[in-house]
């Protein structure tokens, strides 16, 4: 393949694999878990989006005007009110961390998902062009733009939620209460080993399902965009346009939905964690 940016029907596997490879420091990962590798593209896009959110949030928060809300303040007030309503409905006596956590997850996941709408070849082409200007081999330049198509991103969020689940469990039940939950839940005191396994699975399933759900949805969406991009040769062009448009429209539903689900489940899990000790 002479040009990685042109969808080459002659070598679709290589095209897709190239697009699914991250720009990384420390070589490419060799095992499922390889902490020697750092995906610079995912991290960079996340940092840029987080900075954008932080900048807008800072500006709105600084210039906030109760009597004369304008422009972006209205948008953010709507989102804040929406998230706050969700938090109030699901987790009535939430402390003041739940709201900011929920809104941050909602907004940042939404924006990271939204990167999927950018044409699959646009950002990689830009990066490759810049890299070529610095004399790099285009075949060696990778750029995977959507952070949520990366397990690191989704599990980073899931880990934060998991840590908070443990924190709120201990805060509401005490350490002994939390231990009792593992020992006596769900089958009472005569099946302690089973209880430990069941509760551990139940607790671990929460972050894993959170992380995998978002990753699966976005990865599948990205893969479908890549497959549609393969149609970019002569007589298949109309098909590419129509399919690309349809999938984009469908994906525009998936993007906020997944952000919303992640946020909602976060609130639900933390609400469950904050309940006192219940008897079984």
């Amino acid at each position, binding site marked *: 393949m002479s040009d990685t940016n042109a969808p080459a029907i002659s070598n679709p596997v290589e095209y897709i694999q190239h697009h699914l490879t991250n720009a*990384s420091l*420390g070589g490419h*990962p060799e*095992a*499922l*878990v*390889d*902490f*020697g*590798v*750092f*995906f610079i593209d*995912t*991290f960079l896009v*996340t*940092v840029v989006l*987080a900075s954008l*959110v*932080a900048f807008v*949030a*800072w500006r*709105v*928060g*600084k210039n*906030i*005007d*109760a*009597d004369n809300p304008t422009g972006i*303040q209205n948008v*953010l*007030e709507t989102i*804040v*009110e929406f998230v*706050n309503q969700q938090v109030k409905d699901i987790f009535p006596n939430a402390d*003041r*961390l739940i*709201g*900011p*956590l929920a*809104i*941050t997850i909602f*907004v*940042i996941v939404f924006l990271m998902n939204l990167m999927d709408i950018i044409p699959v070849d646009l950002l990689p082409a830009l990066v490759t062009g810049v890299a070529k200007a610095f004399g790099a081999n285009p075949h060696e330049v990778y750029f995977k733009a959507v*952070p949520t198509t*990366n*397990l*690191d*991103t989704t*599990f*980073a*969020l899931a*880990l*934060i939620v998991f840590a908070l689940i443990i924190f709120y469990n201990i805060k509401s039940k005490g350490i002994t209460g939390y231990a009792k939950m593992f020992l006596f839940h769900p089958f009472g005191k005569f099946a302690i080993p089973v209880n430990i396994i069941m509760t551990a699975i139940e607790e671990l399933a929460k972050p894993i399902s959170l992380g995998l759900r978002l990753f699966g949805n976005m*990865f599948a969406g990205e893969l479908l965009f890549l497959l549609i991009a393969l149609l970019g040769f002569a007589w298949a062009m109309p098909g590419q346009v129509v399919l690309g448009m349809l999938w984009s429209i469908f994906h525009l539903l998936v993007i906020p939905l997944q952000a919303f689900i992640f946020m909602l489940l976060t609130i639900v899990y933390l609400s469950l964690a904050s309940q006192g000790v219940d008897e079984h």
Partner: protein
Amino acid sequence: MNITATLFGQVIVFTLLILFIKRFLWEPVLNTMEDRKARIAEGLAASEKGAEDARLAEERAIEILREAKNQAAEIVAQGKAREAQIVEEAKNKAIEEANRIKVATEAELEQEVIRAKDSLRTQVSELAVAGASKILGKEIDAKTHKSVLDELVAKI
């Protein structure tokens, strides 16, 4: 599809972002919204209170007006009564004065008459004595004929 060191970077980025959003967006926006809600509620309560006040003021104004009308009517009635009284008093005083003047005049008149009669009597007795002395050509002692004279005077 791997878990890499990026995980830690992402955790740090997201944690910082959550704390940043909490400090610079969530709390100011929520405070502002709560503040605004409170102020709207306050405004509505104030307007309700204002309407109530206006209603009370109107009621009071009507009452004051009614009272004022009553008072005015009372004053007019009092005035009329006083007028009648003054007229009556004046009339009585005039009649009294007239009576007094009449009585005084009558008394004076009577006195005058008595005085005239007295003087007439004296003059008649003198005249009678003078006349008699002229006729008799001698002095008539008034003392000796006193009883005659007195009789004469009493007849006049």
